[in-house]
């Protein structure tokens, strides 16, 4: 009973937060520049939280997330531009395609672990990108142009809320616990009767599907889907957010996504410095605080919860 009440409360907080921001956008208090950054923050949150499900909670080190984002971006664009379907179908289609690809790819590769999985996912992300690059139907090397701007703050915000709620509830369910047990000790998990392959593939598929959603939202905000937007550098960007926030912390990912989106907006005219700061951050974090900002804890401060739209939950399970 108490849990449901909390759930409703955080949902209400989300809606209130949305109403305020949307009001400010409509009154032009938040100009196009800040609106763009809000949209980017939300897309980064979706990407980071979904990658965190794979890397942080299930402990499988994937660095090919941009590939799944590309699938969503392109498939969504094909659905709206070529087949004239409504945007919501494009989002679901993008998610389904990326998820399906995640399933097909995950089934064989998740037998690998650690370093090998990292390189394999990086390679797969690149294979996806190169394949898209060679399909003239979606624009090839010059990118898929002329995508209508269906995304706006409303779409992106609610997609983010859905992602965060879905993944958070998943983590707190039997399935999520199974994923965490794989991260903690795969052999012990197996001994306890957990079908590790099944749960790894599940986490990978769900993570990929949400990356697909982020991709569809992304391409329908920037009018274009270009293969150069989905290189492994993009995957490293997402990885940086997850690592900075803390592997295994949803609120950490959200905070880091907000923080790093602002950092990269501020450094937009100095792209080298942005990457130098990112890389130093990764090194220094690993040397001095390998668990990231939040470790695997979640924020429970009520005031913070309200500020961030109530997406955060207390650390009730005591990690």
């Amino acid at each position, binding site marked *: 009973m108490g849990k449901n009440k909390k759930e409703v409360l955080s949902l209400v907080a989300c809606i209130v937060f949305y109403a305020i921001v949307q009001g400010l956008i409509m009154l032009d208090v938040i100009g196009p520049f800040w609106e763009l950054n809000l949209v980017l923050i939300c897309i980064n949150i979706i990407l980071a939280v979904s990658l965190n499900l794979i890397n942080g909670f299930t402990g499988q*080190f994937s*660095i090919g997330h941009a590939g799944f984002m590309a699938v969503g971006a392109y498939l969504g664009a094909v659905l709206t531009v070529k087949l004239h379907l409504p945007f919501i179908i494009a989002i679901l289609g993008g998610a389904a395609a990326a998820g399906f690809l995640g399933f097909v790819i995950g089934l*064989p*590769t998740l*037998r*690998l672990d*650690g*370093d*090998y999985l*990292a*390189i*394999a996912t*990086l*390679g*797969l992300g*690149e*294979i996806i990108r*190169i*394949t898209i*690059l*060679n399909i003239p139907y979606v624009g090839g090397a010059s990118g898929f142009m002329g995508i209508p701007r269906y995304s706006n703050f409303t779409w992106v915000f609610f997609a983010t809320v859905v992602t965060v709620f879905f993944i958070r509830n998943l983590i707190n369910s039997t399935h999520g616990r199974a994923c965490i047990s794989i991260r903690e000790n795969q*052999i012990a998990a197996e001994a306890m009767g957990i079908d590790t392959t099944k749960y790894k593939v599940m986490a990978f598929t769900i993570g990929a599907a949400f990356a697909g959603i982020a991709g569809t939202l992304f391409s329908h905000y920037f009018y274009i889907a270009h293969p150069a937007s989905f290189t492994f550098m993009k995957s*490293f960007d997402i*990885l940086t957010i997850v*690592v900075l926030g803390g*592997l295994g912390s949803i609120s950490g990912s959200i905070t880091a996504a907000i923080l790093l989106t602002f950092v990269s907006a501020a450094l937009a005219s100095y792209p*080298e*410095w942005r*990457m*130098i700061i*990112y*890389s*130093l*951050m*990764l*090194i220094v*974090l*690993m*040397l001095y605080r*390998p668990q990231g900002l939040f470790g695997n804890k979640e924020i429970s401060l009520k005031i913070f919860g309200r500020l961030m739209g109530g997406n955060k939950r207390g650390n009730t399970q005591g990690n």
Partner: protein
Amino acid sequence: MDFSFTQQFIQQLINGISLGSIYALIALGYTMVYGIIKLINFAHGDIYMVGAYVAFFATTLFKLSFFPALIVSMVVAAILGMTIERLAYRPLRKAPKIAILITAIGVSLLLEYGGMLLVSPQPRTFPTLFEPHVFTFGNIVVNSQQVVILAISVVLMLILTYVVQRTKIGKAMRAVSFDTDAAKLMGIDVDRVISITFAIGSALAAAAGMLVGVYYNSIDPLMGIMPGLKAFVAAVLGGIGVIPGAMLGGIIMGIIEAMVSGFISSTFRDAAAFAILIIILLFKPSGLLGKNVREKV
């Protein structure tokens, strides 16, 4: 028709072998480091880039000729490799594997973008260091750069094999890679051996970087990413941790890549490398020359 196919095949084979010997040089560094501390040194490809730049400045600013420049670039890269190991990897020796992997990604990004800041992102034209000479056999073309690449790679690999198999430090390296703890008990200074391994691997990568500069005449700060990844694939293909495996894997990778760009399309070149990686990981993860190691609980 058939005749020209054979000819193109042989031509691509020659291109592939010279490209492959470069991959082999880089792959050796990956495989040696992996063999000793089980780390995929993501920054290795960027050391190859640094090697190319050092050679570039040595030949343009200091007017060195080919061999002195090669040696300077190998020495600088060896020092860089040891420094990176000392500052970034050594403190994490006992940390979880993922922490070291993330650090390696960080070091790699730092070298790439730090390089961009220092030497500008623009590609540079590598000077011509010796008179290019083209040998033709019928319709098959071999240029002097390819000959030099192959010759230098072979010499370096012979030296490496000698060092690893015949010298005291080589024996120590093999011991550490076989069992670190036992090696420590036998009085081997493990930290020093790891440091030297990084130095040797980095020096080989730098040589590869300079040879690529000579071969393609163009270098840029991001040039290390793709060859780095492909050399890693080559190391896995040959059996990671196995030195002859890295040489074999490198040559095979080079040949496959030349064949794909010659007969299919050069845009699929990079995809082919990763496809090989995934196939080998799924069917023979220990690689062509690797031994199967059973996972223990």
